[in-house]
């Protein structure tokens, strides 16, 4: 190989590598990113069966049922609609009724959302940012509530 060819092959190799990495990244973004929904959004959303999403809202008052073992059932609401959720595991310390929560998982065949993770990460208002923004958009956010 001449010098020019060598240099060309190095450049082509590098570009092919970068191209492959870019392709992989966009493929992964399409496949692995999960969308965030509030319960009322679900009526208009077209979800594939088993598609992973993040469901956020408030834990509806009086719906938390601790079943046998470590399974917990509760409803997530945005005050317009509510969705039943089941979760097996330890709820985060910040999980409580009428507080914001984000669950991640997929809908089962019976329409119950089966969560495999429950997040109650929050800012100082005890409200995940996504949930707060969603509630504001739906006009049910009360600014004074946190004080």
């Amino acid at each position, binding site marked *: 190989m001449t010098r020019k060819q060598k240099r060309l092959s190095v450049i082509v190799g590098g570009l092919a590598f970068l191209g492959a990495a870019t392709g992989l990244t966009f493929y*992964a*973004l399409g496949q692995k990113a999960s969308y965030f929904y509030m319960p009322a959004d679900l009526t208009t959303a077209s979800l594939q069966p088993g598609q992973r999403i993040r469901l956020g809202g408030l834990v509806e008052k009086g719906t938390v049922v601790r079943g046998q073992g*470590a399974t917990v059932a509760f409803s997530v609401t945005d005050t317009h609609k509510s969705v039943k959720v089941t979760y097996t595991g*330890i709820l985060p310390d910040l999980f409580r009724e009428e507080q914001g929560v984000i669950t991640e998982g997929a809908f089962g065949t019976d329409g119950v959302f089966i969560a495999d993770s429950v997040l109650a990460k929050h800012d100082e208002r005890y409200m*995940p*940012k996504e949930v707060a923004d969603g509630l504001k958009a739906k006009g049910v956010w009360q600014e004074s509530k946190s004080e």
Partner: protein
Amino acid sequence: MVETGHFALVLAFALSLVQTLVPLYGARTGNQRLMAVGGPVTVTGFALTALSFAALGGAYATSDFSVASVWENSHSLQPLIYKITGTWGNHEGSMLLWVLILTFFGALVAVFGSNLPATLRANVLAVQGAIGATFFLFILATSNPFIRLNPAPIEGRDLNPVLQDLGLAIHPPLLYLGYVGFSICFSFSVAALIEGRIDASWARWVRPWTLVAWMFLTGGIAMGSYWAYYELGWGGFWFWDPVENASFMPWLAGTALLHSAIVMEKRSALKIWTLLLAILTFSLSLLGTFLVRSGVLTSVHAFATDPTRGIFILCILTLFIGGSLALFALRASQLTAGGLFHPISREGALVLNNLFLTTATATVLVGTLYPLAVEALSAGKISVGAPFFNLTFGPLMVPLLVVVPFGPLLAWKRGDLYAVAQRLMAAFAAALLAMLVTGLFVNGASVFAALGVGLAFWLVCGALTDLAVKSGFGNVSPAIMLRRFAGLPRSVFGTTLAHLGLGLTTLGIVGTLCFGTEKILSMHAGESVELSGHTLRFEGLYPAQGPNYSEQRGRFSLIGADGGVSAEITSAKRFFPVRQTTTTESGIETIGFSQLYLSLGDEGTDGSVVVRLWWKPLVTLIWGGGLVMMAGAAMSLLDRRLRVGAPSRRRKRATAMPSAGVP
């Protein structure tokens, strides 16, 4: 005292302006006296910032609730240690710590940079001053920690309970030493661009700073990971949380910089690339500061969400990243390209390292910023988590790890891949053996698990091979070998340790992910549970009282082989009345390199309690490997000190040379 601190901060801001303008003008006009102003001003600026920080620390230590920041983040019942660490456990205080470290590094250049060319030193200090000035202004305008409250409240609102932990005392300062340490590399790069000149001595100056910053950043990330592991009670060591990524991106870019700076120093090649990488690394540090401090992300790190702060930091970001890259575009063509090399060579290996690391950095960057971009375009809210990073970052890292052992064994300029492969046969055999043993004799080992263990052994043995080959193992008598070994340059040990640490971390990750087991169950007092051969008995819940919390302690006994109690493990639910928050204290028992980890859930109505148990094989190696990497960086630094130093140290260098000549 608080007003003294406030005043000192304003003075430090004014001095940083002087530090920016005067040396810069001096360097342009060739005025020695103006250039010399930079040093003393920088040191004074650091002293004033330190005074300011001490004043705030004092207010926290004495629980002076007339200061708004103290009132919001402290409580009189908190233990003294957490009162003090609370100084940087909030937005204002942590920004003050940021500039304190920035001015500290500037002062180090001022003090130890007496043998730098005068104009380079002046320009470096000026750039450092400019970064400082913008952040001082940011603090004074939007995040002033010294604002008083009148009337003063009687009691504070307490520090966020998850931050009341010793891990937090160490994590932010280490992380900032790393983040901000890269500012020196940035300043050197911009100074070189201003001068339009760059040479190997520039690289000799930049490399130790990169090493220092990288060492602290490694420690900071490892510490943060361990803190999240035991404090959050989820048992995970890395969550691909945007805030974690914010510190991980400068680390990846910094690792690339570390390697390309070697090429530049030893071979005068890759000059322009190294310069660009130095700029990018600090830009990623700034981006990390923006992501964490602006409140665009929600996490324990986002202490406050004030939009003006975000916009302010965004302006700083644009100014420095845009400015430096524009300067780069203008001046890079003036810099001369360096030596040539064959693709199969040490340089070639380091270029490959850079290609992989920068691409990996880019994927992490895309994954971190994509949700923000989607939200800004109001196309919905998405989250990009572990599945994305496993699919993109993983495939990029694995080939890199495979080629790591080849790098240090290849010769400069033109290497012999076949000879290197021969030398690595022993390491390869060891890796293959480890793979087979794992695959055949460990229960439930998947193909991936076996490959992962093999990869980790490959890295560890490959790193040791380098040391063995360089001390002449198998070629010379043991006595000579030992002498050669002792005479190897410290940087060789540094490389070995760093790569060894990488292998150990890999082993820890593979062990935890592939062989870990977990159980969730509800237990009554007196019940026992078995997990991966360990039997645990739940002894019951006991209430206890802390200084500013009350807790329910779940006591567990680890039953030994003889039926007796071999260890007691306690996990607790802590309730902090001031913030009305509960935290979980996990119970951890270390057995060898592995850990038994348990955390308490909710109490049932029938007196049972939900317990989550994990068996985490080799998990401590994840952070242990980080410590070994830090030791490697420290070792390399010791080597540098012998060669780059005051002229009086040159004699030592001459005596060190013969041993340095060992290939």
